[in-house]
């Protein structure tokens, strides 16, 4: 077990190193940020030089790379190219806002997806199954921006029940959470159905029935724990993916979180912030993957015991 954790952790660190380096390279080869930030024709060359020095863009590439690594370890990711504020500070004040959205979305998608998937599997072929699956396809197929705008039109413009956008009250949370949770919950419902059906067909469920156990006991003891193993993998990966999915929704609902920050920073070619955000996103993904591996090992005694 310890060996398993060790190997997975090393693998996660190696992935992180690759991502950090790739991010640096990719952002440097897309052009000189100063030239796109400042109007080149009208700006005096010394001003351009000043900016380049301020952001260390005048240094050779390898020095920039070393400095970039030092920054990561010291928790200083440079200053915003736009307003000169500390990047870590800017991101840090946005993180709780996005986490709030993600947390509720996570709860909502499980609350929608798991019961729907289980109900569909237990009533395979019935109208419940068909309804859940049709809803899942629709929920997954409907893009977030269409659903978000439809909801804004219905609940904010026509019915005037909810605020159309912004942040601050629980009412503000409702529409963004529903938009995100519908898409992810739909996928979870499908995976849950498949996982439960798979376990229901296994001989140990038949054996448990032959032993006289009641249906709910078999569900709790045989079916759900075994179905949880593949589900944890999917759900864990969604946790990492949610942060990416939040970009569109945060933009539509003017949610002042990280996703919105990413959009504005990309539009403004704020290299320092984009770079930090890419690292943050990938670190989240890598961490989520690592957690999935560990959870998988914990749930499955065949891995846990042999280690």
């Amino acid at each position, binding site marked *: 077990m310890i060996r398993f954790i060790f190997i997975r952790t090393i693998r996660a660190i190696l992935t992180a190193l690759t991502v950090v380096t790739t991010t640096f390279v990719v952002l440097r080869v897309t052009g000189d940020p100063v030239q796109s930030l400042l109007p080149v024709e009208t700006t005096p060359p010394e001003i351009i030089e000043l900016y380049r020095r301020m952001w260390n863009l005048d240094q050779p590439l390898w020095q920039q790379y070393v400095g970039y690594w030092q920054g990561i370890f010291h928790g200083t990711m440079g200053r915003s190219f736009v307003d000169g504020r500390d990047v870590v500070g800017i991101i840090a004040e946005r993180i709780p806002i996005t986490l709030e959205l993600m947390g509720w979305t996570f709860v909502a998608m499980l609350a929608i997806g798991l019961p729907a998937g289980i109900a569909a599997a237990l009533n395979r072929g019935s109208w419940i199954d068909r309804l859940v699956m049709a809803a899942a396809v629709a929920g997954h197929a409907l893009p977030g921006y269409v659903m978000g705008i439809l909801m804004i039109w219905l609940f904010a413009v026509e019915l005037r029940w909810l605020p159309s956008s912004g942040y601050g009250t629980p009412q503000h949370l409702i529409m963004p959470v529903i938009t995100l949770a519908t898409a992810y919950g739909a996928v979870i419902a499908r995976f849950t159905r498949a996982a439960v059906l798979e376990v229901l067909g296994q001989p140990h469920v038949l054996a448990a029935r032959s032993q006289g156990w009641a249906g709910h006991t078999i569900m709790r003891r045989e079916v759900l724990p*075994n179905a949880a193993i593949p589900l944890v993998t999917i759900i864990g990966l969604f946790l990492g993916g949610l942060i990416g999915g939040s970009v569109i929704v945060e933009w539509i609902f003017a949610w002042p979180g990280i996703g919105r920050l990413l959009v504005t920073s990309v539009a403004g070619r704020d290299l320092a912030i984009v770079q930090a955000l890419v690292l943050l996103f990938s670190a989240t993904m890598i961490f989520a993957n690592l957690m999935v591996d560990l959870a998988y090992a914990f749930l499955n005694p065949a891995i846990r015991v042999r280690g």
Partner: protein
Amino acid sequence: MQIPTLSSAALTAADTPQLSIEGLSVAHRSAPQTQQVSDVSLILPAGGALGIVGESGSGKSLTCLSIMDLLPGALKQSAGVVRLHGKPLAPGRKGIRGRRIAMIFQDPGATMNPLRRIGPFLSGLVKLHRGLTGAAAEAEAVRLLDSVRMPAARARLRAYPHELSGGQNQRVMIAGALAGDPEILLADEPTTALDVTTQAQILDLLAELRAERGMGLVLVSHDFGVIAEAADHVAVMRAGRVVEKAPADRLFSFPQHPYTASLLASIPPELGRASALTSRKNPPCNRPSNATKAIGLKARGLSRLFEARGRVRVHALNGIDLTVQPGEMLGVVGESGCGKSTFGRLLVGLDKPSSGDIRAGGKPLVIEDGEAFRNSRRQLQMVWQDPLSVLNPRLSIGHQIIEVLQTHRITDDTQSRMLELLQAVNLKAEHASRYAHQLSGGQRQRAVIARALAVEPQIVVFDEPVSALDLSVQAQVIEMIADIRDRFNLTGIFISHDIRVVRYVSDRIAVMYLGRIVEIGPADDIYHAPKHPYTQALLSAVLSTDPKRRKSRSILRGDPPDPAQMPSGCPFHPRCPRAAARCRVETPALQAGADSRFTACHAVDVETSGRHWEAAA
């Protein structure tokens, strides 16, 4: 001779049978007219043992599941009634399942919840059926494990199913079935997934438990040997119907229905070698002229070491020396984990030996990718157990054979060559356009063999080629293999766990145990006069349907060995009835005996002492 009919005294001796099935029919919910089981009536006399035997699709398992009302969701019982002591059982079988009737299944590993330890599994059942909790339930769990002769019972409580062997898991399942102290045990193919020596242990256990508890037994199996061993009344099923039912002794001695008789005649020891020999007189298949004569195979010091997770070293093969003569068929037999499949994979170059070398026709075997590798593929072919997973599901059978002919540029007239090949394996031209899923199991294996023959191999390794097939089909495919072997002038390796099958097709037999050959010699000598204690045990585990031939068996104790835990000295000594002090320290080498037979055993009286066997081969 007067044969009593079904309704007469023999089956209905008791006033009220313990269990009776009357007019049972099982049909699809969506298509009620297609019956899987039709009008089956069976009786289990009090404390008796009823065997239900049949091939796949005969409805024997569905009949058994109907007793517990456990049919798959797509099926339903469309007619009939199941009675326990004359009282009809209610749907759902509440209070019956696990308490009055218990059930065990085929694959003990898969019938246990992989996430649950043995202790909670058993004490949960004890609590459910007897209301015991806590320490009392645990004590009862230990007692149950003791009653199924599980060694170190208390220590097993913390084990997960994957930490136990198949035989041990089946013991745990039986212990669980006994938790409710049932009066009837249903056993659906309880030993099919187990090794032969383990099978013998489990059947003995079932017999002992029946005697101890006066428990009735309903045993479902495809294997007449198992049925003959454990049942005193037998029903033969075919296509959903009971075609014959009779007391066991009478059924096996005087089968009435032609189907029963033909099945009994398909059991490997009964297969007449004479009939196969006549069929071998078929004209040789017209091989293209570039085909060469048969070549031999020579393995020297062959070892394969697996390093599992960098720590556990598993010696799957341990210094195999072997020569297969051109045109010879060598049978390789042994229990799971003995290394026989690893051996087969090495011989066709699908895996690299850790040490030692293999020569085919005098030339070293090429296993690196490239032109030479492709040519060596022409020389060596392998046939696996499960034909469905080997055939391409998206190409027709004919297409797959033609593809092979084209890849290796065998001939220009691929179409007619393909048809010849199909004919050689007794398939018809119409099968060429079929897909794998449209063929029966036997036809699929024939198609696989036809495809293997397409490259005109000189050596073919058959790895359990008939183990997944029904008995009657098994016999046909074995005969076909014996036939093509002669017609195509093949050198062959035939790997199987079933020594009866191996003996039928092989010239010589090699018996493997824990990565070593423990005995090798002419097939009939090995079969009729085994010398190594392990070979003797393997043969004594073979179940015969002939009451006269059934004798007291020497059952091996313990489980099939784990290659990761290699014993010192002779690898067989922990299970060997003749083990002496010397066996614990010194590994015996293969010594030549009489009749070109070689045995690796200190206890065997070696007539020609000191001669290493390979020197003589």
